């Protein structure tokens, strides 16, 4: 059958690129391998030339796939499943990138692209390490390329083709009997991008995170190259790369946390969700590797552990790919990613790197130089090694806990997370934080090899006293009483607070005590300050997170217990001020924004003392992709020391189909009448008053009924229905008391002599606009964000410093060589 309006060329082009990229990266792998094994210079050069050509073609292909798919999505060629399924015509332009990486093919492409970029930097800089390092990277490219193939190989489907056609993917035979199927509204419009992902963080978080993931391969590739060549000089080149990886991965992870904080309603930035853990663990391992690498460079110790940490860090990236993409996390994660059946392929992806790496390591391990003399306790390398070991164990513990679904799959058990999963992580990691915080503080005060005890204690004394003083102040006056989990945990939190403060103060002091204020070489200290600040932010914001939206409707909840208070939602009626602890909150109005399909609510917060008044605008976006209901986006009021975090947990739109009728009542001034929730009093009939005249048009005369509504619980509302007269024409202006769903209007004069009038009273049966609200307070959350920014800055400074020193060493060597030649 011939279908109308399809653009089949682009799909063939894209898939052609995908297949070619697979072949080119395979050629590059083999050629780089040959080059790394060949000792003859001429032959090596020709292999390198071939390899670079293949890698160049590979790069063109990878960018080709990316651009083709982007072209398809941005032009809304919905004959392609990917474009149809992840975007829509009404989607805002800026989210087109987000729809690009909503599916797993798009995120694999990101990974591919970053590998290419990193590969070219290495070809440019790595010199003799180019061949072995690029061999590993090219091989990873081969593996990722298979994920995008989508072809059948001996009956098994390998990968998933992002250029697959809608009519081949969607099981809707009736639809595709029509040659104009693209014109059907649902096809034409597109299946849209998931509502949760329509957020600006989702445009930048995945590229940064994937750069972080991709960069972990560089130290790994250096390590493999070192094992293959039995040459350990790679370690000095790997340091800036490991620092780079640490900086980018941290940024990517925290952008994800910011996204969770901004747009998800988990109630925070971190909940130890398996997907979050999976991205954190490789970072921790990379930091451990970076530190042992520094130890080896300065003291000759810890070479073996450097190998292990770099291998594990990359393996954990592969493992996290498996966890998040195989669908195995189904029951434990709030983020449930795709469930395309690629499990086998993903497991192979891990093993094909991990097993050869470990075999190679054990094969070489006898030849890896180790120092048998013991490290001095008063040496930097000793404490750095301990720190790295603690980091490694922390990441192993987190991985072991996150892997519960994997055990269930392998052993057929039915184990689930503990009752309070977040606490089960926190209670362990708080001790890790204490150890790492203190080590971060003291370790730089030790010198490599040996430090004189007196000098060490003398230098560390002042920062210790200052840190102790500050943290005691915070402990006593900071109001940290997180006793929900018992006294023991609270003590641990206070100690962790000290450790974090100690980390900040000691590293800050070290810039002057140890480095004499030389900012150029202060990268490590600055990164440590940032890390410790982030720890501080985490401890304060999570131990003092408070729920503000406590239920004040007066309905007692018996189940409320010491460690479990579920009554965290408050109901608001449109236009009615509601008591919420420290604040009175009013849901004033709402608007629907047609360009981003979000419904915004305006909520007015007025503090009880009247000093603070602000509006917040949380919104909801209608769910798409066949889901009903709405996804809520929080809004925040930022203060320098806290955030008020508000989101709409449920909503109900008012209905207009109202069937109740006006009830006629005869009244005269002073009379009262009951209604279902209280009493209505007619105070007086006014003929000339400001409040009356405001409602009249020019030339009208009118009378107003001045009324008071008193509810059962004693609240009072004013009402003034009006009747206006002009040229023998009556105009009725009813008045409403929204809070009581009451409408009152004038009917007629009942008994002109007695001053009796007939009023119509209607109790509106329609439902009002209602929202339920959840409000949290996060104190000092900014400390966390600032800490991360400082840490990343520190990383960047130290990378610059290292690259500069390496360059200057090289040029000075050259100068010496030239000088010797001249002499000769």
């Amino acid at each position, binding site marked *: 059958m011939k279908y109308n309006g399809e653009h089949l060329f682009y799909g063939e082009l894209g898939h052609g690129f995908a297949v070619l990229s697979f072949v080119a990266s395979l050629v590059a792998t083999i050629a780089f391998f040959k080059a790394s094994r060949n000792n003859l210079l001429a032959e090596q050069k020709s292999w390198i030339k071939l390899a670079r050509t293949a890698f160049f073609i590979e790069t063109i292909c990878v960018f080709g796939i990316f651009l083709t798919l982007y072209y398809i999505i941005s032009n809304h060629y919905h004959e392609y499943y990917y474009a149809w*399924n992840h975007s829509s015509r009404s989607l805002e332009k800026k989210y087109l990138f987000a729809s690009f990486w*909503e599916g797993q093919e798009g995120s694999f492409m990101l990974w591919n692209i970053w590998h290419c970029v990193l590969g070219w930097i290495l070809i440019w800089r790595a010199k003799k390490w180019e061949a072995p390092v690029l061999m590993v990277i090219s091989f990873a490219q081969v593996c990722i390329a298979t994920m995008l193939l989508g072809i059948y190989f001996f009956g098994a489907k390998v990968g998933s083709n992002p250029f697959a056609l809608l009519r081949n993917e*969607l*099981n*809707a035979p*009736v*639809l595709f009997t029509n040659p104009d199927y693209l014109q*059907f*509204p*649902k096809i034409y419009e597109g299946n849209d991008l*998931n509502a*949760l992902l329509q957020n600006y963080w989702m445009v930048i978080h995945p590229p940064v995170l994937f750069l972080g993931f991709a960069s972990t391969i560089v130290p790994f590739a250096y390590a493999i190259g070192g094992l293959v060549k039995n040459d350990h000089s790679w370690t000095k080149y790997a340091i800036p790369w490991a620092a780079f990886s640490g900086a980018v991965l941290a940024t990517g992870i925290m952008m994800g946390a910011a996204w969770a904080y901004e747009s998800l309603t988990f109630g925070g930035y971190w909940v130890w969700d398996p997907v979050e853990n999976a991205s954190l663990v490789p970072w921790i391992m990379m930091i451990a590797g970076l530190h042992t690498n520094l130890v080896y460079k300065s003291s000759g110790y810890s070479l073996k552990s450097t190998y292990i940490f770099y291998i594990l860090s990359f393996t954990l990236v592969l493992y996290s790919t498996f966890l998040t993409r195989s669908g195995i996390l*189904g*029951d434990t994660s709030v*983020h*449930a990613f*795709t*469930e*395309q059946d690629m499990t086998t392929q993903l497991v192979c992806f891990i093993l094909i790197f991990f097993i050869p790496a470990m075999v190679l390591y054990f094969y070489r391990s006898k030849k890896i130089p180790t120092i048998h003399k*013991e*490290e001095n306790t008063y040496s930097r390398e*000793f404490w750095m090694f301990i720190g790295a*070991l*603690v980091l490694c164990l922390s990441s*192993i*513990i987190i991985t*072991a*806990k996150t892997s*519960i679904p994997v055990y269930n799959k392998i052993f057929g058990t*039915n*184990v*689930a*997370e*503990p*009752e309070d999963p977040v606490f*089960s992580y926190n209670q362990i990691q708080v001790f890790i934080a204490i150890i790492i915080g203190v080590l971060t503080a003291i370790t730089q005060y030790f010198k490599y090899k040996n430090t004189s005890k007196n000098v060490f204690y003398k230098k560390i004394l002042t920062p210790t006293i200052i840190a102790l003083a500050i943290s005691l102040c915070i402990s006593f006056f900071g109001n940290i009483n997180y006793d929900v989990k018992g006294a023991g945990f609270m003590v641990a939190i206070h100690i962790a607070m000290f450790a974090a403060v100690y980390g900040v103060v000691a590293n800050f002091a070290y810039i002057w005590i140890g480095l004499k204020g030389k900012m150029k070489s202060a990268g490590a200290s600055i990164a440590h300050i940032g890390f410790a600040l982030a720890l501080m932010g985490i401890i304060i914001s999570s131990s003092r997170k408070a729920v503000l939206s406590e*239920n004040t*409707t007066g*309905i007692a*909840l018996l*189940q409320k217990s010491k460690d479990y208070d*579920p*009554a*965290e*939602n*408050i*109901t608001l009626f449109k236009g009615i001020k509601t008591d919420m602890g420290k604040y009175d909150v009013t849901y004033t109005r709402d608007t629907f924004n047609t360009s981003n399909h979000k419904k915004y609510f305006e909520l007015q917060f007025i503090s009880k003392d009247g000093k603070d008044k602000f509006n917040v605008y949380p919104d909801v976006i209608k*769910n798409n*992709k*066949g*889901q*009903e*209901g*709405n*996804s809520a986006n929080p809004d925040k009021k930022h203060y320098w020391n806290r955030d008020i975090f508000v989101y709409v*947990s*449920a909503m*109900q739109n008012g209905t207009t189909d109202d069937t109740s009728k006006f009830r006629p009542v005869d009244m005269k001034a002073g009379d009262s009448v009951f209604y279902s929730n209280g009493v209505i009093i007619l105070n007086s009939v006014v003929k000339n008053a400001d409040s009356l005249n405001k409602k009249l048009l020019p030339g009208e005369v009118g009378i107003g009924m001045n009324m008071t509504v008193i509810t059962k619980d004693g609240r009072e509302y004013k009402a003034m229905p009006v009747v206006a007269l002009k040229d023998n024409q009556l105009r009725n202006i009813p008045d409403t008391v929204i809070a009581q769903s009451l409408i009152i209007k004038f009917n007629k004069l009942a008994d002109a002599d007695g001053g009796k009038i007939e009023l119509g009273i209607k109790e509106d049966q329609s439902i009002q606009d*209602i929202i*339920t609200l959840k409000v949290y307070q996060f104190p000092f959350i900014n400390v966390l964000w600032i800490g991360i920014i400082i840490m990343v800055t520190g990383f960047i400074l130290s990378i610059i410093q290292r690259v500069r020193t390496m360059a200057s060493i090289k040029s000075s060597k050259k100068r010496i060589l030239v000088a010797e030649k001249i002499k000769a």
Partner: protein
Amino acid sequence: MKKTHIVALVLIAIAIATLISFMGDVTTYETIASAKQKPGKFVNLIAKMDKSQPMNYDPVKNPNYLTFTAIDTLGNSIEVVYHNSKPTDMEKSERLVLKGKVEDGKFECKDILLKCPSKYKDDANANAKNVSASVQ
């Protein structure tokens, strides 16, 4: 033996102890029938909402009170009480993970995890159903 080795061994021992104690904390997935056998024990149920039974949620009266009946694949059912706001889309969800414990024959739920037809997931069947319905 080197000091670093001793420290390493101690730390590894602590890590193992931690994980063992963690194994003591973990809970289990149960069927409704087996959960009823263990009142008071924190369990995870995999079930879905029984739409033939009434669901009670009135945010006007109390936004933190939801009751409904859950039914599992074996056909057993139990009344669920959840002291929080109703998760959007709960009726649509094919699979609910209910965390809580059985008390007095009712399931006191602490947390509900929704397995929606699609969250990030591309469910080809759901998509097909969705589109076909609009065509016919």
